[in-house]
């Protein structure tokens, strides 16, 4: 058995097992900072799974955006808060029905997506399904980046621009809400400092 296949076959179980465990610990751990660290572990494992699916560009973007940017800010905020250890109590069971309903809806949506978009599960026999799965290897003649780029920037660029505008509006809104202008604040204007004339800076005045 080739070592590459051996590693890949077992890495899937490794990543997904660790991901499930740490996802449970995100909710279960008492210290909020530990929760965030486990969340980061979940993200890293998800990136590992994406690499196993041969979508390495998405995996790297996942690491850069979620782990490198969002989770850092999250950790920042959680660390700055006055940390109290959260007591796990019985009231959590009351949330269970709502959680179950949400999980069922989520599963149903995933089923619809898989059944209509990727692989029709029930209208085909098993051999055909295996043929369908080969679609990742069909597109390896071009790299991930080029493929995604041509898709996003030529076919779906309207949606891309709209998504960026939504993000922009959210950012402007957040800044407008928190902007507080202090009027008697003395700021350093470096351009003014540098362009100051040496001869005019010091004056000699004769006192009578």
């Amino acid at each position, binding site marked *: 058995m080739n*070592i590459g296949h051996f590693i890949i076959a077992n890495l899937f179980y490794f990543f997904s097992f660790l991901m499930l465990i740490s996802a449970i610990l995100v909710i279960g751990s008492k210290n909020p900072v530990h929760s965030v660290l486990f969340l980061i572990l979940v993200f890293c494992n998800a990136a590992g799974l994406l690499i196993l699916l041969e979508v390495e560009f998405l995996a790297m973007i996942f690491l*850069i955006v979620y*782990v*490198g940017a969002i989770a850092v800010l999250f950790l920042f905020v959680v660390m700055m808060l006055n940390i109290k250890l959260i007591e796990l109590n019985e009231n959590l069971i009351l949330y269970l029905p709502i959680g179950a309903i949400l999980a069922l809806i989520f599963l149903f949506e995933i089923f619809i997506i898989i059944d209509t978009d990727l692989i029709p599960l029930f209208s085909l026999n098993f051999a055909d399904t295996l043929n369908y799965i080969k679609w990742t290897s069909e597109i390896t003649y071009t790299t991930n*980046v080029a493929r995604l780029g041509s898709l996003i920037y030529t076919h779906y660029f309207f949606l891309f621009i709209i998504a960026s505008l939504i993000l922009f509006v959210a950012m402007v809104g957040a800044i407008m809400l928190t902007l507080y202008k202090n009027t008697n604040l003395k700021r350093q204007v470096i351009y003014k400092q540098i362009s100051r004339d040496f001869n005019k800076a010091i004056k000699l005045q004769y006192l009578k």
Partner: protein
Amino acid sequence: MILELLNIIIKILAIIVPLLIAVAYLTLAERKVIGSIQRRKGPDVVGVFGLLQPLADGLKLFIKETILPNQSNVLIFVFAPILTFLLSLISWAVIPFNYGMVLVDINVGLLYIFAISSLGVYGIITSGWASNSKYAFLGALRSAAQMVSYEVSIGLIIITVLLFAGSLNLSTIVAAQEYVWYCIPLMPLFIMFFISILAETNRSPFDLPEAEAELVAGYNVEYSAMGFALFFLGEYSNMILMSSVATCLFLGGWLPPMDLFIFNWLPSPFWFGLKISFLLFVFIWVRAAFPRYRYDQLMRLGWKVFLPLSLGFVLLTAGVLLGFNYI
């Protein structure tokens, strides 16, 4: 199967062991260069010209007592330096030393390095938090904010180089510089990239996280012995890594300056090492020559100067390349 595994392990060791030796002698080089800039001798007692000094330092750190503070969160406290060191090592997997001389030649090599360097924040911020000490925490917050802000401009500069080379694979990027190194058409970006990596690796003049005079020692106050040594190794290995990334992106990697017989006489990895050594020398030179930035100046430089400039350069180069039909 065992043989394959052994092959992989030997390949990894062949990168890591020279790297650690390089780190050790980089510290000696730093002390020697700063010494001669300040008209001192630098270390010259241990061994000939002080050549055994790094080994002596390493031994000292190794036999010191490891202190775990009572107040600290022990698990994260121990984990943080290991993470920093690990992250500084795994980026080396995609650095090409010569054509084809690379551990893994992945298509998204540049993004991989960027992702790993953005993970580097965690080692620092967790160490500062887990120490449960005011100084360490303040140092960690400063350091994390600094690294996050300069990553933005590094990302945009990488995008510009990516537009030129048309690939994220580091070997392809170097091979694309066969006729002209990118530091010539992209001179301002090269300087900006160099300043950004100074800030990213927390080197002076941006060494606010461990500002000796203000915060005791930044995020690693509470660390002693091997914990401190791992942070130290991580920092210097990151310096070498970032220099080699800058070499790959702007100084033509393993390529000689011109395709002449005299230049080709030296083997390609040697050119690569020479360029890295030059950049590392500039790192040390900057440390000896410039005073430390104030914190608001540092943030201003990152967000108000480098971010708009690098964003403008992305648009400019994209426009020029599109205009001449080079993409």
